[in-house]
Each structure stands twice: as C-alpha cells, then as structure tokens.
C-alpha cells in the first residue's frame, strides 16, 4: 500500500522487502494497514458528517432530542471490531510461527554477537570470524544465533527482516534470506549506550560462487607480511601490543576484546561502517578512536610516527 519510492532512495526501507522474512512481515504490515485505513475512514467520514451537519446554526436552536443510546448501534460497533481483530490475529499468529520455524538442517549457521558498538559475525562451520560485514549466499536461508558480549543490542537489517535482540545470558535465533546479491544496511535497534547511533553494519549477499570465493579467502588469509613496509608494520603491531585485544589467525595475536582482524583487507568498511577500509581512514581511527566512536575501549595510538603508521596500515591492509 505504501510502496511508493524506489529502494535506491531508501536502502533500509521495510517497504521494499528483499528477502522472505521481510516480505512476510511487510505483507502483514500492509494487510493491517489496509484494515486500519478502513477503520480510520469509518471513524472520520461519520465524524466529518456529524461536524458539518450538526453544527449549531442559530442562537435559538431548540434543544436536541435527548438520546441516551442505542443497543443496536452499540452492538454493531462492538461486533464489527471483534471480527476485524480476529481477521488480523489469524495471519499474525501464523506468521509468528513461520518466522520462528527452524531454517533447516542445511542452512548456513552464523553466530551474531553484539558488542558496544560493533557487530561480530562467526561462521562456526567455516571457521571464519569477522566484523562489520556479514556475508551470506543469496537465495538461501541462513540461521542466525544471536548473543551479546555486554548489554542489550538488537540486530536489524530492515530490507531483509525484522529485528531480534541480543540478550546477555541468553541465546536467540532467527533466520534471514536475501533474494538477490546486494549490500543491505543494518543497524543496532536497541539503545546500547553512548555510541548506539553508530553501531551499524552491512549484510553483503553474494552469488553462491562469490560467497565461496570470499569464504575461501577468509579461511586462507595472508598472515605474514609480503612487503618490507608490511614487515615493519608487523613490528609496530607487536611493539604497541595490538595483539592484546585483536586476533589475527596464524599469528601470536590472540586478543579477544576488539574485532578479529584476520582477513581485514577483504572488508570494505571498518569501525561499524563508520569508516572505509583504506589506509587514510585506518590511520584516522588508530590515531584517535574516540573522535569516531565516543566511548570506545580502543585506546588512541597518537604516539605513532607517520612512518610507523604507514607501515602498520600497510600490514593490516595486506591481510587478505
């Protein structure tokens, strides 16, 4: 009913569902909206008529007939809404169960972990751990297991499906499916502290073959520097203790506080989508993280010389 504007203008619109879950939710929304518009008209049309017809017109207008009620009318506007509510409740219950059904034994499993303020994505079957970008094969249901590392967050990709909270001490599940390859913006939808507004991410749906290429690259990433500059960068990485918080598979860096940087060079965005994945943005982030994400636990490394920074970013960008 409201699907008016093109999805390029509103890339995160629920009115342009790009997957089965979002479509089911959109259709229920649309059906309720049609019913509710009928209700609205059934109120506003009589109201307008009454306002126009029964406005007091002259000072000596006689007292109107003192009607106290009408059983027939009152039963009418009790029974009709009851029927409408039942008509709405039936698809509501059906969709609630359909959306909660398991995604199937062969569905790709992804564990989504909300952190203040970034999203971690683990592929337990593939041995991949990454952040900020969730890759999935288009046209297949994926089953998400939702957990929180700290406070409540809510995982929401409007064009692919409704949200589900990540709750500390509890594991939730949901399924998603993207019809076509594409990049779909997502965002945390439950207030989670200082930089809640900046806790964004992208879902990258790919053709199955492109997805497998990506997964292969993530599973076999470069772990050793390939250029002299990158070798210096690794030294900087170790000198400043980056591995205390970050993991790079196949290296001694095994920290668990910040995002896993394995295959960082394969990502197009960093820092919860706030920055692009290039040397300049990475430099800006390492230099003064709280200027980008207020309250982040990432410390500022303002003591790095320009040479050290160039080397470090070369090393990190080369992890692909």
């Amino acid at each position: 009913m409201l699907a008016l504007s093109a999805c390029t203008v509103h890339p995160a619109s629920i009115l342009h569902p790009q997957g089965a879950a979002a479509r089911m939710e959109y259709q229920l929304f649309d059906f309720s909206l049609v019913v509710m518009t009928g209700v609205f008209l059934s109120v506003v049309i009589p109201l307008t008529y009454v306002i126009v017809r029964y406005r007091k017109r002259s000072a000596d207008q006689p007292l109107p007939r003192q009607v106290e009620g009408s059983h027939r009318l009152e039963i009418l506007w009790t029974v009709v809404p009851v029927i409408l509510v039942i008509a709405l409740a039936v698809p509501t219950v059906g969709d609630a169960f359909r959306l909660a059904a398991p995604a199937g034994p062969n569905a790709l499993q992804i564990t989504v972990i909300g952190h203040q303020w970034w999203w971690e994505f683990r592929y337990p079957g593939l041995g991949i751990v990454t952040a900020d970008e969730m890759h999935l094969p288009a046209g297949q249901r994926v089953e998400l297991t939702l957990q929180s590392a700290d406070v409540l967050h809510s995982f929401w990709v409007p064009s692919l499906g409704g949200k589900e909270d990540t709750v500390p001490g509890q594991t939730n599940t949901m399924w998603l499916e993207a019809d076509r390859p594409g990049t779909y913006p997502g965002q945390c939808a439950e207030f989670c502290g200082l930089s809640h507004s900046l806790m964004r991410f992208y879902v990258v749906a790919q053709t199955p073959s492109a997805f497998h290429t990506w997964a292969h690259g993530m599973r076999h990433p470069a772990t050793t520097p390939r250029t002299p500059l990158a070798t210096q960068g690794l030294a900087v990485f170790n000198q400043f203790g980056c591995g205390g918080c970050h993991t790079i598979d196949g290296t001694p860096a095994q920290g668990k506080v910040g995002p896993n940087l394995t295959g960082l060079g394969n990502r197009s965005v960093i820092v919860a989508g706030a920055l692009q994945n290039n040397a300049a943005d990475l430099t800006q982030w390492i230099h003064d993280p709280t200027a980008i994400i207020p309250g982040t636990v990432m410390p500022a490394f303002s003591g790095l010389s320009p040479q050290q920074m160039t080397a470090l970013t070369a090393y990190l960008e080369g992890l692909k």
Partner: protein
Amino acid sequence: MQTTPEGIAAVPSRSLRPAGIWSWLTTVDHKRIGILYLVTAMIFFLFGGTEAFIMRLQLMRPDNHVVTEALFDQLFTMHGVTMIFLAIMPLQIGYMNYIVPLQIGARDVAFPRLNAAGFWLFLAGGIVLNSSWLLGGAPNAGWYNYAPINLGGVLNPGPDVHGIDFYILGIQLAGLGTLLGGINFLATIINLRAPGMTPMRMPLFVWTSLITSVLILFAFPPLTANLGLLMFDRLFHTGFFNVAKGGNVLLWQQLFWIFGHPEVYIMILPAFGMISEIVPTFSGKPLFGYSSMVFATIVIAFMAFMVWSHHMFTVGMGPLINSIFAATSMAIAVPTGVKIFNWIATMAGGRIRFTTTMLFVVGFLVSFVIGGMSGVILAAAPADYQLNGSYFLVAHIHYVLIGGSLFAILAGTHYWFPKITGRMLSERRGRWSFWLVIIGFNATFFPMHFLGLYGMPRRVATYPPNLGLNTLNMLETLGVFVLTAGLLILLFNLRTSLLRGAPAGADPWEDGRTLEWAIPSPVPEYNFARVPLVRGRDALWTEKMYGDGRMLPADPDPAFHDGSIHLPSSTWLPLIPAITLTATVYAAVYRVWPLAVLGILCAFCGVFRLMYDPDPGHWVTPD
C-alpha cells in the same frame, strides 16, 4: 470532625481565604492542591519540551553536532521521564483533584492531608530528577532504563556517575506521591458522593478517575519493587540484573512493563473521561451509551494488565507467547473503539458549538484514532519485529500521548479554566493556538511513521545522510517550531485571561450538566454551601430538565451547622514526608548512610505525627 454546637463556638470562623506562599505550602484544600499539580506539571512540561526541542535541532540534519551523543542520551531519557511522570500524569491528577470532588458533590477529598503529602512527594521527585542535570549528569539509559546498561560502570560509559541513582530515587518519590493520590481518590469516590449519586449516576470523568486510581494501586507496586531491586544492585552490589552474578536482564523488562503498560492507560483514561464530559456539554445531549462507556473503561483497565509483553516481542519469548500477547493487545482496540463511536454518536443529532474546547476534542478524536491504528499494527507481532524500536513506534507513542492525552487535557483546560479562575479564555487566541498546535503536531510526528518504515531506529543521536531520511527529519524540526508557537500562544492566553479575561458565571457554557457548574466560579473554599441532592445522571441537567435549574439541598448535611460549614485546617505537617525523604534520597545518592538512616527515621516519626495530630478544623460561613 467536631460537629457539636460547642465545637462551633470553640473555633473562630474564617471565611476569607488566606493568601501568600505559606498558605499554599500548608493547604489541604483539594482545589489548591489541584492548582499546584497543574502549575507544577506545566513547568515540568516546559522542561520536557525544551529537551525535545534540542533533540529536534540535533536531528534536523544528518551527521549533525548540535549536542554530543552523551548529552543526547540524557535529553531523550529526561524528556520521556519528565513528560510521563512529571507532566502528563500530574496534569491528569491535577484535574482529578480539582474536579472530582466537585462532580460528586463533596467539600473535600477523603484524606486532605494525605492528598497534600502526595503532591509534595511528587514535587520532590521532580526536583530530585531534574537536579541531576546540575549534579554530574542526568540519567542516560532511556525512560524505561533497561538492564544491564542501567547498572552503570563499564557498561555505561559517559556521564553516568549518579544519573541513574537520581532516576531510581526520584521516580520512587514521585511514584509514592502518585500512589498516595490514587488511594485518596479511591476512598473519596467510594465514600464521599453526595446523597443520590449512585455509581451509575457518576459522571464519566469520575468513573475514569476511579478506574485510573485502581490502575495506580496495582501498577505502581511492581515499579517500586523493580526500582528497589535496581537500587540494591547499584548501591549494594546485589545481582538481580547482573548476568555475571546469576541475574537476569529481562527481569527488569518484565517488571517494568507490568507497570509500564497500565501506566499508558493511567495517562489516557482520565483523558477519555474529560472527552466524555465535554462532548455532551457542547452537543446539548447526554453521553451516548453511558453504561457501555463505563463498562468499556473497566474492560480496558482489566486488559491493561494482560498485554505488557507486547513491548518485548523481539527479546526472544517465542512464537506462542508473542501470539498470545499480540491477540490480547489487539483486543483492547474493541472497547476503545466503542468509546470513539459513542462520542461521535453523542455529537450526532446535537447542536454542536465549536469553541476551542470542542476543536481540541475533534483534534483528539482524529489523532487518537491514528495512534490507535498504529498501535494495532504494532500489536501484530511479526510486523512489530520490523517496527519495534523504530521511529514508527516514536510516532505511535506521540500520537497517543500528545494527540490522545495532551489534546484531551488541553480541551479540559479550556473547558474548566472558567470554573477554576472565574474568567473566560480568549476564543480568538484559543483558535490560533489550536490550529498552530494541530498543524505543528502533525508536521512533527506524522513523518516519523515513514522514518521508521525507512529504517531509522529510535534513540539515535544522528543518522547517515544516505538512507533517505534527511527531508523528513528537516520537516519534523520545522513542525516543532510551529507546535512551539501554538503552545506559547496557549500559555500567553492562559496568562492574559487569568488577569483580564471576561468574568465567568457559574455555568459559563450554559449547557453544563454536572455538579461543578452548579456552584460559583471560581469555586468557594467550601465548594457547596449545601450538599446537593442528586436526582439523576447529569445531576445539574436533571434539575434543568425537571426542576428549576438549581440543586436541591440534601438533608442531613453532617458538616453544616447553623449556617456554617466545617472544613479541615491548613497544616505544614504534609510537607514532612517530602522533606525528610528528599534528604534521604540525596544521602543515598552520595552514599552518606548515617544521614540516609536518619532521614528515614525522621520520615517515620513525621508520618506518625501527621497521623495522630488532631485536626479541630475550622468553620466557614457561606456568602
């Protein structure tokens, strides 16, 4: 209460009403307490409105930096807390205080001192909450203050040192005041009705006040308990909401919404009552379907306790629980719809006068129906997976709280202003304010539906420029300017009419139906020179139809002797709980435990003093 002739001789008569600040601090008169609630709530409304205004300036453009994230979080938290606990609810309670005793033909409430104590506790809670701005930062976890971020520490970086302590203890104080008020209204409406005012002759505003009081009585204890648990977690390091200590973060949500959803009806039922009073008066007809209106109110109140989990559809309760709460939530639309159609049927066939009061009623009807529609859509759980936590929801709550509660309160304000002040509001300024408010309100809040559909979550301090949210956000901020202009004209109208408005008679709308229109404007201290005898529903209208238009005196009238009326005396004692508990609260916030214990002891002693202090009352001779 002394009723012997000796008693009359012993206490001198004081028919002149005292003035000055001390008389307001010591008053136990329900009308003065009502005015105190209304004025205080209006001041807090300005606070909450200013907070909203700053937020809209921040959201006017994408990636804007009018305020920091840290300040924005405090703004939306305090905006919600202020508007709900310190503005809308006390505005309703203010009118309940002023109007309910008049409509039931009583000279005061059942417990005048309790009533005063309740007001001062509410004010103390409001001061405690707002003082946090000056004492290191306001609470910053949203008005529903979810766990575990409300535990503070590393989970809540930012200015939260004591902000959430102020939230806990400030709401605890204000909530205690509200609870005392609710108990008082229950006792008043049950016990102090004039002879002949049977339950099914009570005006609808009295009915909704009664049911609202029942809701307060059952809804506030879960809030008190929840705040108590959080207080233990924060002050004494227990682990009710701390997963690391075996707690459960969803416990907070369950308890909060067991309070929070009935709270929504606490804010809307008195509004329904006001509309049910105003529509008959300005249509010249009795309320259509009185019995079904009463029954619908009771059903709504009962169901208000059956729907709380619809705020939690996305926490992972499973499809069965979500389906049950979706169905109960949708079902509430039925009794609410009955009310809407009954109001329209009341107007049908009447001679409707479109004063400013009635314009706000029409604004209420249309806006509230829109809010109800979005409410039913949100109740459809799978649709809510998309809409929950988005700006669609922000649109919904503002359509029911502004378009519903506030528009009804503004209608009630225009309706009862002559009764309270003895002066008429300017109709010309009233129309200006109405049209600006209605245009500004819709320009501000209608686009929020679309922002939510386009994927904008609530409580974000900023948004990226590439999601197609820019134009609508700009439009909303412009709408706020129009809305603000309308509200400022309304305030200006209140002020100038208070000073220079045309004098109002006892029955300024001429077709007054209920007892408050049978007595002079402004209302004398004793309300009724003789307690009226109620001979039908719409007591005054019954006399206009079947009598000489004046109320007959009831006999006997136990507080009336030889032309004098016995009334309770002013006393400063109701201030004690507020003062001592406020000291306790600040002591607890700053962990000064001996002072906190002393404060609680003083509060207990003060309450005993208040309870056992005999009130000889005083006698007033009606003019």
